[in-house]
């Protein structure tokens, strides 16, 4: 009841405030005033509904928070138990692996192409996840490194005829290098300041690409970039797309393996500690600058490799592919999926890239829907789809007689990937 009244009040306020622009229209030529009362009704009704829905959600959220942190926890735990049951888990993973493995033979080339895009974004998301999710550095210029990789391939191919496989490692090194170069001046900054400066760097790189025509061919871009080859074998068009799919899939698997290992390593722990408390982190002997720089340049490495793949996939690149929107998209993937969580980032990429493709009807509202999703997530599930969980180590307290007791079981760090995303 209370809520209804409040929403009504909000609606009246909005009707009043928007009255001059929504209702009155002065026709200066005929010197008449048109009263558009239907607009008033429209504003009133929609504001009332929105406000009511919002209030409802908020109150539900609050009740949820207060009353049963436990109930939901139980449910989540039951679900986890199900997932953690070995047989179920392995059969799920196996089914998923088979599906991914035969995907190109089940679906049309159009679908395969879309999936390749999604895989590229998974790579980008996992790369950015190192910087944002693990090390807690808000980087809004990630796309700069993506562009560096793409242009590295395009230009090296154009001028020196280098192939995909030759450029891939070169781009990785170049990405790391550029990451260090850009990271050095900006990593003294924190939080929002870092975000703004990296945003600026991203735009600068794009503007350079656009305006340095003699080197990059400016806005018209570079075309005829070859797809990856396999020991000089020639495929048909379809074969090349399928091959491309497997190349990207392999790179994604490689990325997942690397990221997982990093996460549970000395370096990965240092990144997380840095994210959690910079001062304590330094006081415990971790070199802040060096550690940040490592995260930043490693993220850049992955962006650059994804860039090479992107150039090879589209076979045409120009600066328009590397706008801020792209950075925002990758960041959304990480935030939506769950910062720090590998599985989360993969889910986030699949949702954010595949959904718009299959909901073409909403294409025009894409950004609005995006914004709405992000806001809703920030309010109701700030930890993202998948909450990052720390790996548990199981100790055997059995032989705790003296010095070297309690050894962690094999379940240890090497296999964190599966369940602990």
């Amino acid at each position, binding site marked *: 009841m209370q809520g209804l009244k409040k929403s009504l009040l909000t609606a009246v306020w909005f009707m009043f405030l928007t009255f001059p622009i929504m209702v009155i229209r002065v026709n200066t030529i005929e010197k008449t005033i048109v009263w558009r009362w239907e607009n008033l009704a429209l504003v009133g009704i929609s504001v009332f509904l929105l406000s009511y829905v919002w209030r409802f959600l908020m109150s539900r959220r609050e009740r949820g928070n207060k009353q049963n942190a436990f109930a939901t926890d139980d449910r989540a735990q039951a679900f986890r138990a199900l997932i953690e049951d070995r047989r179920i888990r392995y059969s799920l993973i196996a089914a998923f692996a088979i599906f991914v493995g035969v995907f190109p033979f089940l679906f049309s080339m159009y679908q395969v192409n879309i999936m390749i895009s999604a895989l590229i974004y998974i790579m980008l998301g996992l790369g950015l996840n190192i910087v944002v999710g693990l090390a807690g550095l808000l980087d809004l210029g990630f796309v700069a490194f993506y562009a560096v990789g793409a242009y590295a391939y395009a230009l090296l191919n154009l001028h020196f005829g280098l192939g995909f496989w030759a450029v891939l490692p070169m781009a990785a090194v170049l990405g790391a290098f550029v990451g260090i170069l850009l990271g050095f001046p900006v990593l003294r900054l924190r939080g929002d300041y870092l975000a703004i400066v990296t945003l600026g760097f991203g735009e600068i790189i794009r503007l350079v690409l656009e305006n340095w025509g003699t080197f990059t061919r400016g806005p018209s871009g570079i075309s005829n970039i070859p797809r990856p080859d396999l020991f000089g074998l020639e495929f048909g068009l379809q074969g090349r797309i399928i091959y491309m799919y497997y190349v990207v899939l392999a790179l994604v698997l490689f990325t997942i393996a690397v990221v997982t290992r990093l996460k549970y390593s000395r370096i990965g*722990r240092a990144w997380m500690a840095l994210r959690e408390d910079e001062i304590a982190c330094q006081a415990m002997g971790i070199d802040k600058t060096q550690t940040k720089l490592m995260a930043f340049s490693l993220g850049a490495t992955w962006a650059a490799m994804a860039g090479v793949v992107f150039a090879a996939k589209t076979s045409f690149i120009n600066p328009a592919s590397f706008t801020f929107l792209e950075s925002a998209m990758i960041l959304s993937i990480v935030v939506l999926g769950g910062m720090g969580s590998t599985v989360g980032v993969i889910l986030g990429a699949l949702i954010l890239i595949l959904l718009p493709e299959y909901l073409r009807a909403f294409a025009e509202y894409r950004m609005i829907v995006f914004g709405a999703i992000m806001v809703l997530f920030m309010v109701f599930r700030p930890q993202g789809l998948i909450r990052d969980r720390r790996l*548990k180590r199981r100790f055997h307290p059995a032989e705790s007689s003296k010095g070297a007791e309690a050894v962690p079981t094999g379940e240890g760090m090497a296999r964190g990937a599966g369940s602990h995303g």
Partner: protein
Amino acid sequence: MAEAGPVLDVRNLTMDFGGLRAIDSVSLDIMPGEIVALIGPNGAGKTTFFNCVTGLYTPTSGEILLSARGQRKRLNGLKPNHITALGMARTFQNIRLFPHMTVLENVMIGRHCRTRSSIFGAIFRPPATRQEEAESIEISYGLLKEVGLTALVDETANNLPYGAQRRLEIARAMATEPALLLLDEPAAGMNPSETRELQALILRLREKHDLSILLIEHDMKLVMSLSDRVCVLEYGTQIAQSTPEEVSRDPRVIKAYLGEEADA
């Protein structure tokens, strides 16, 4: 350590914040194996003293020298992580754990400066890295055992009760293999039985790890029974430095504390 010189030698340390002189020419040395208490009313500059010594603040003037791990170094101007690597570790007055990392991982962070493996080690996991990691786990687990937290290894730090968080901070600091441990109000918020346990723990750690300890504490009973020497600060100046018995009889100290009514 056989050498006779002090582990920590602070001479005429002064720290200004704008117009406020938080520490005014304080000198203090700590001998190997000694437990020294730094006491004084709230706002006397004790935490600031810690922050200067550990490199979080750059002191306005004065000398700080550390003799640990077989070398003697001037600490002025060094970064906090560098100082920790030289053999000094601390805890914080308002606990600063890594809240979303597990208890074991928190301690393993302390191992960072004593281990070497790089990004390449992390990715390719050569035998050296595996061994280093296994050692880190073993040492960290051993420390958790010393502070009595083995039951909670897999818990995230923010889920720990208060007293356990304080002990975890000590274990984390110990993982850096310090020669000198700085404890900032370790008993704050503990009940009497926890405080007794803490006292036993501090003595055990000193025994086992050849440790010198500098301790800020308001619990006078703890200070009196633990420390070999007490240094009293008031408004940034040192008003006394001697044995616990003498300090507790010193009229200036009594006045400083009566004026403040022994703040807790």
